[in-house]
């Protein structure tokens, strides 16, 4: 039983590492995007002016760089950073054979689902081609799966969170 839990904990640790990598990549991309958007806003999105459909692009970017849009982006980046830290802590605990708490995994999953629903409603990830829609759906499912996997393993561990799994032969 305990041996099985150790295996599950190892698997959780691996998936947590995957989540950390994805979150770090997400944070880096989001930060660069926010800085670039600020830079483009300073020039009045001159890059898009006069291009076909440029006016729509500028309107969308202005919406994204509005105080509310920026606040949302910054809050999401901060939460992602906090999650990365939290996941590192979880990994540290798992290294010591201590069962981590499920909360950061739930937060990560809920936040991702929420952001996908928001994107869907706001129409910012709408793809014109059917191929694009399929790709977006597959990508979203993959990311949900990555976030669910540590939870699946963690839920199968009977030992309570914060307690150490006993090593047995």
């Amino acid at each position, binding site marked *: 039983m305990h041996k099985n839990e150790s295996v599950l904990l190892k698997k959780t640790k691996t998936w947590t590492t995957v989540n950390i990598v994805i979150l770090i990549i997400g944070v880096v991309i989001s930060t660069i995007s926010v800085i670039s958007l600020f830079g483009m806003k300073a020039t009045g999105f001159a890059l898009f002016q006069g291009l076909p459909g440029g006016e729509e692009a500028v*309107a969308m970017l202005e919406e994204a760089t509005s105080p509310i849009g920026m606040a949302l982006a910054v*809050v999401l980046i901060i939460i992602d950073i906090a999650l990365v830290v939290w996941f590192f802590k979880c990994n540290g605990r798992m290294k010591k054979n201590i069962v981590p708490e499920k909360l950061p995994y739930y937060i990560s999953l809920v936040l991702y689902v929420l952001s996908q629903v928001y994107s869907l*409603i706001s129409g910012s990830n709408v793809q014109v081609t059917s191929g694009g829609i399929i790709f977006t759906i597959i990508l979203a499912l993959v990311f949900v799966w990555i976030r669910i996997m540590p939870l699946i393993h963690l839920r199968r561990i009977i030992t309570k969170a914060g307690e150490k799994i006993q090593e047995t032969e």
Partner: protein
Amino acid sequence: MNKKAFQNKRNIIIVVIGLLVITLMTLALVQGKITAKRSKDLYEVYVVRTQEPVITDGISRPNQEKSYYYDPTNGVISAIHVKNGQNVKISDPLFAYHNETLVYQIEDAKTQQKRLYNQKKELQKQVDIDPTLKQSIAEIDAQIADLSTNIQRLREKANIVVYAPMEGKIILDSNKKTDPSAPFLHLISTTPMVVSTVSEYDYYALKTDQKVRVYINAEDREIEGTVTGIDELSTVSTVTAMGAGATGTGSAGGVNFTFYVAPEEAIHVDFSVQIKIPLEEIIIPEECILTEEEKEYVFVVKEGKAVKQEITREKKGLQMVLTSGLALGDEVLISPDSALIDGQEVRIKEGSGNAH
């Protein structure tokens, strides 16, 4: 106890942050909807204007050209009074013929005339004796007069001078002045005419006395011109004869009609030109037009409001041409919303109206 308090505090923070995220997302969505609603009232406009001119290729040709051949019946060419490339005015002498045979005939006529004078003198001496001789003297006088006329005519024929019938430039080939089969002298009018062709699709764009712009390729200058004539029938043979320079833009797969333009300034003969035929008809893009009960309407922007305006059009060639309802410079909404009502305030996209 402390641990539980910490967990409670942490949970509260998480809930607060969660609520903050949800609130921000909701606000962003609301803001997005407002922006979308505002952009619905944003329109592009089409500024009413004449169409781009039809451009055809043409070539400048002499308005008139006169060729002179050697005519042996007039004698030999005794003198050429002009040089190659010389500009001449009307009535300037070009060249002269001298006919030696006619000179001999003049001499013979003069001798005969002298003989008649002597005969007349003799008869006048005897007229006092024989008054019937008066009749003979009158006959001799008539013969002398006939001879004088004849001599005068022969003199004119013996030395023919050919004069320039118009202003122009001389092209001379002295080597051919004894060859009756080829012209030795050309007189080309210095006021050329532009010859071009227009396709059947642009035929209705042309009118006699219409002002056009003539662009001279080699000189990079543009001058005014007037259409002086349009052929009623298509002239494939004329186009071929004119050479490569005078083919219309719409020649591919259609019939061409030759037309003639009198330029207001001189153009070097055989220079290629481009003729810009202005199109005065107004064409309104179909996406601007609404049809209600077989009547056509557009929304004209006046003082920031969309004013519904009835228009009439008629078919001309392949196009529907505006006949009434709009003036040049009017701003017409492109793709007006079906919910748009007369007098509704609208916003115009920045830079709109120039792209079309």
